[in-house]
């Protein structure tokens, strides 16, 4: 009998609850959508680097943390917002140079797993470095993003989430224009397509890598500012990377739209599951639900929703 009650709680009651209160469902879904935007931003950094260099950059989450720490550190030392943003962006560009020179270049042509491990090493390094330079405390961050709740059509929405969504939209548009319309963007797409072919038509691979790591760093900065304004800048931001991974496999490692759509799906799925399935499972399923969801998608499409079709040859 116990098992029947459990199955009832697992398979029936959540849907009844959703059906009875559709406005609440919508509210939860929108809340999830906006968390999803944040996941997308972190996943975007992963995708950029993976596309251009085939490196699975585990350090993206720590780059977000590092950027946010630098930004908040500069703010606390009296710099205005725009100056801090510019200086942090410069720091991220400088970091891209250093990483390319000291980590990527010596490891050219190694197995992907070796490069992956190197980025985990980078994660440790940046975590230590960031906290030595800026301290390990929680820094509150307020750059004047409004946070009051709004009621639109009977649904409660936080203003902050709208701003975050708008920023994300602008960022993606800028990146799309950058990729499609500029010479550098074309070069980046060429490298992503085929390293050797790109080299043979004279595209300097090293510079491309620096650029792409710098862009990923700046995307990380934006993500870090948004996360930081919401929750304060603290060490746990780097754990967001773990949330971005299921987003990545859901959307496909090589697809920018995939990162966005994947982030939204994961965000909504996670929130809805957390709210409606807590009575059945006892809560705290946020930790693994995203992975389970991504796994189900993967079993149907092994390359992710928008990933390039895997063609295997002997």
């Amino acid at each position, binding site marked *: 009998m116990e098992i029947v009650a459990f199955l009832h709680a697992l398979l029936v009651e959540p849907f009844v609850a959703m059906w009875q209160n559709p406005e609440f469902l919508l509210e939860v879904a929108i809340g999830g959508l906006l968390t999803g935007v944040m996941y997308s931003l972190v996943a975007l950094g992963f995708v950029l680097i993976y596309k251009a260099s085939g490196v699975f950059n585990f350090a993206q989450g720590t780059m977000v943390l590092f950027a946010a720490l630098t930004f908040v550190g500069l703010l606390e030392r009296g710099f205005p917002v725009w100056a801090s943003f510019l200086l942090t962006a410069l720091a991220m560009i400088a970091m891209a140079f250093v990483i390319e020179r*000291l980590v990527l270049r010596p490891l050219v042509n190694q197995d992907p797993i070796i490069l992956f491990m190197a980025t985990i090493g980078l994660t*440790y390094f940046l975590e230590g470095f960031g906290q*030595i330079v800026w301290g390990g405390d929680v820094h509150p961050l307020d750059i004047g993003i409004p946070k009051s709740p709004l009621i639109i059509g009977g649904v409660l929405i936080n203003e902050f989430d709208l701003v975050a969504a708008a920023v994300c939209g602008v960022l993606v548009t800028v990146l799309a224009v950058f990729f499609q319309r500029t010479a550098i963007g074309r070069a980046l797409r060429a490298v992503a397509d085929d390293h050797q072919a790109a080299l043979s038509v004279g595209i300097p691979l090293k510079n491309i890598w620096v650029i792409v790591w710098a862009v990923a760093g700046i995307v990380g900065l934006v993500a870090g500012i948004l996360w930081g304004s919401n929750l304060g800048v603290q060490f746990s931001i780097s754990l967001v990377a773990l949330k971005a991974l299921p987003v990545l496999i859901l959307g496909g*490692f090589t697809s920018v739209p995939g990162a966005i759509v994947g982030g939204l799906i994961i965000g909504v799925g996670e929130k809805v599951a957390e709210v409606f399935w807590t009575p059945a499972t006892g809560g705290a399923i946020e*930790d693994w639900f995203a*992975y389970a969801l991504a796994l189900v998608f*993967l079993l149907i499409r*092994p390359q992710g929703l928008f990933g390039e079709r895997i063609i295997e040859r*002997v």
Partner: protein
Amino acid sequence: MLYREAGQFKSSYGADEAIFPIRQDRWLFAAALIVAYVVVPLIASEYWLLSILIPFLVFSLAAIGLNILTGYAGQVSLGTGGFMAVGAFATYKLATSFPDLNIVVVFILAGLITAMVGVLFGWPSLRIKGFYLAVATLAAQFFLIWMFNKFPWFNNYTPSGVISAPPRAVFGHVFVTGAEANSVDKYLFVLSAVTLLALAAKNLVRGRVGREWMAIRDMDIAAEIIGIRPLKTKLLAFAISSFYCGIAGAMWAFIYTGGVEALAFDIDRSFQILFMIIIGGLGSILGSFLGAAFIVLLPLLLERTPMALGFDVPVNYLSNMQSMIFGALIIFFLIVEPRGLARLWQIGKEKLRMWPFPY
């Protein structure tokens, strides 16, 4: 001069297929075993046995497990911590439900349970490959840890959630778990288990099964075409790898820490073991030991050095500094020798064979 195989003739296929075909290697191995079994228990202090050697051996076992899966069969897994937790909790449940069962049997049964869980979570590997699979194994990691934290059945409804290992003997009054267990007994027990399992692994990867794994690793489609069944081969790799990880987890909880706690097997543990096999050498049993030694000793070294040099640094500064140096050293090692310490060992041996001639 000392290390040369000239004059060592083999007169049977068996001799040619030995693990150590060169006599000096056999001597070295025998000497290492004597040191480990006789000299170390005589001279090592309690601290060395309990805080360095036992974790080193347990980590080596887990690293061998992961190396079978990742280094030999080519399936990258980030779920090692989760599988170790399965082993630990299975041991706890078995040991408390059947108090009369010998601890060795309990460990083996726990390993088998872990193997089954491993097969379950290895199932997606038939469709998902590469980094997609790596991230998918994180699902196992997070789900298993959540499950052990969530359902009090696993810790026998202990209110605090932390449970201590009950005392159990291997035979007679030789206790290896629990409070009054002797550290030398514990060490010898772990050492024997690791020796046996490492030898088994070494022979496994040298034989038909190991070759099938390596064929799948190098190119799975080609392997399939020449008649290797991917279903059987991949799931076998997951099962055996999880068996090793499960036993390692059980020993970690029961013999090293003396308590079972899901937090001890979080994602960081998985990365730590992945580091060991990368630093030590993918696809090498010796590498698993070298990597485990490196990862166990390095943090200790980083902790002790500033004190030894007479610097007085604040604790939080020190821990950040450690993580920086750790990260930098990992990158450095990957750049210097991406194929790991085992490869360095091999190069050293090659050089020694030729010495003093250049070639």
